[in-house]
């Protein structure tokens, strides 16, 4: 009995000291000592000389866009030799797990964290505590609320107003006489769709361009089945749809043929890119005289900017000039600039040719 008790207390003591040691080693890395600045030979300017460990955290890693984005993040990290250790964790769509992933990485003593805060503001306390523990904390893409320099170092968000503005400019150029616009976005009230709508209405003259259907957008949850139902109804209801705007192009693949079933041409489509969509355009453009297409990059490279910022801050490199990721225009079937519509029919449909990562590498990633 006494032996067992002694053994128990010994175990507890070892356990406690282990916890204490971990806490010591993780205690505010890089917070007190000034980060040496400078550059590393052969590395980009954002890569400073101080050696660090970096953690990339995903809120939900389970789709092709996320797989490619994660790989892009890892690829960007590799460009800087000062990052001696790289770790990845997937929250699997579980907010609780995402929070404990952050806490676990902080406890392990990482110097910089790049976080996709899917759960939004629910992630803010965890981000703040990591930041306060002295870890360079960079949330990206989804807005977690809070402020740069108070709750985290910087939020590297996607600037969806740029997308809206790019779409609106294309519509102005290609439909100068005005027309009916159907705008489809994700779940009701999502801020991405609202930002895009506000940017579009800020540019397009309301006297000429009319948004049909629910405003700011027709909610489709980015679900292909619901998109199809919404579009079917819109086609039946509106004899004239001149342009469809969607912030997730590939979800419309099953829906667009509804136009042909009603004996009408697919109209102009302004959206975000995807290989399957490019191939759909190539196959259907001949039969649909009004089908023109323009896409903006889906934004897999948003993560690269976030990694650059986090690495620069933690290693003492040069900070990127912006904290907003602006998706560039990618394809334009009318002008062909910057690119004509692209289709790689021998590669999977759900790769994104707009991403920096080569198409073949993306395909290899998805076929794993």
């Amino acid at each position, binding site marked *: 009995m006494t032996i067992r008790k002694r053994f128990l207390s010994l175990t507890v003591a070892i356990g406690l000291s282990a916890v204490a040691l971990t806490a010591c080693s993780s205690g505010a890395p890089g917070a007190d000592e000034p980060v040496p600045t400078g550059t590393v030979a052969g590395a980009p300017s954002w890569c400073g000389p101080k050696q660090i460990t970096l953690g990339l955290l995903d809120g939900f*890693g*389970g*789709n*092709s*866009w*996320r*797989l490619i984005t994660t790989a892009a993040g890892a690829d960007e990290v590799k460009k800087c030799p000062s990052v001696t250790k790289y770790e990845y964790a997937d929250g699997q769509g579980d907010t609780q797990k995402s929070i404990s992933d952050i806490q676990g990485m902080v406890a392990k003593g990482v110097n910089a964290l790049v976080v996709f805060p899917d759960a939004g503001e629910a992630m803010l306390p965890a981000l703040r505590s990591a930041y306060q523990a002295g870890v360079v904390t960079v949330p990206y893409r989804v807005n977690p609320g809070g402020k740069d320099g108070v709750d985290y170092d910087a939020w590297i968000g996607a600037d969806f107003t740029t997308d809206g503005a790019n779409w609106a400019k294309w519509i102005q150029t290609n439909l100068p006489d005005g027309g009916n616009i159907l705008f489809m976005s994700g779940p*009701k009230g999502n801020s991405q769709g609202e930002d895009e709508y506000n940017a579009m209405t800020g540019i397009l003259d309301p006297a000429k361009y009319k948004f049909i*259907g*629910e405003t700011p957008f027709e*909610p489709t949850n980015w*679900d*292909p*089945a*619901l998109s*199809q*139902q*919404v*579009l*079917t*109804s*819109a*086609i*039946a*209801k509106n004899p004239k749809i001149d342009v469809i705007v969607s912030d997730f192009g*590939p*979800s419309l*693949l*099953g829906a667009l*043929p*509804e136009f042909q*079933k*009603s004996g009408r041409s697919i109209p102009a489509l302004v959206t975000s890119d995807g290989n*399957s969509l490019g191939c759909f355009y190539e196959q259907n453009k001949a039969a649909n005289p009004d089908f023109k297409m323009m896409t903006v990059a889906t934004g897999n490279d948003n993560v690269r900017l976030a990694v650059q910022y986090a690495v620069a801050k933690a290693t003492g490199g040069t900070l990127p000039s912006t904290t907003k990721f602006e998706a560039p225009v990618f394809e334009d079937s009318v002008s062909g600039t910057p690119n004509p519509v692209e289709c790689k029919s021998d590669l*999977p*449909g*759900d790769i994104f040719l707009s991403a920096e990562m080569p198409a073949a590498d993306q395909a290899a990633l*998805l*076929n*794993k």
Partner: protein
Amino acid sequence: MFATERQVTGLARPRRRASKGLITVGVALVILLVASAVLAPSSISQGAVLGMLPFASVLAVVGLGQMLVVQQGGIDLSVPGAVSLAIVVVSRIPNGDDSLLVPAVLLAFGFAALAGLLNGFLVGRLGLNAIIATLGTNALLFATVLGISNGSPTTTTRLLQSVAGGVSFGIPHSVFFAAAVAVIVIVLVKKTVAGRRFEAIGANPVAARATGLRVRVHQTAAYVWGQMLYCIAGILLAGITAQPTAFQGNTYLIPAVAVVVLGGTSLLGGRGFPLATVVAAVFLSQLDQFNLAVGVPYAVRTLVQAAALAVGVALYTIDWSRVRARFGSSTKSKPVATTA
């Protein structure tokens, strides 16, 4: 007099009277179609109907599967996982290669059979609560979905798109599939010995066991058949949507139960009403289309669906004669006194 009349209808000619469920959903559908024609003509235009029918067909097939399980007093909450798994298997495995489609379809049915046997084993043999057991199976199915697809099922093959999503003689192919499934279910359940036993067991498993019927086998079979039908629905849905998500089945959990209930099948088990279930699927799908055409905001659309379900449940579960008696008690106090 009463007895003889019963004998005559029972033996000389089988009951052909439409069920209460069929009459109810049939009337509801007619009212809805009239309302559509008056308030939102675009929702019954050719294009809108052709767009609605494929989803109605998928819902009908899922609903028939759920009905078989509900007939045995069970409930199957693994519908989302089952539909999603079928979608992922038939899109991800061929990965665009038409020649691999048939093996993938067979594999999907294999998975469905396994999931059905598992549900049947847990509920029929071990006697677990159906809600808990099938929820667990649902989680397992989604794990398989993620394992196979990494969360992205990719585009369905061209062949499947034309087989499941195509149109012949002006009618979407999925309608033919759903009609075939409905006919098979009706014939098997209503016209075969096994089907009659199946229904008898659902009505009263204790009595059925006493008469020597193999209750567990039939209960397990209900889950297996259910899974087969969800699998068919998933394959159809993959073809219809062309680029489905890995979680496409999620939206079918509630509607699958709703059409069974609206069709008049009791959640306590017993007789099933396949035709009424199919009509209910068309009703719910047209209701969606109607709401879209009228331009009801998204939030209200969800409320309308919920209201339809609530009304459906209320129609069959509330003892209306008693309600009438209670509210009419001031004028007719005698009947209440006698029933009480």
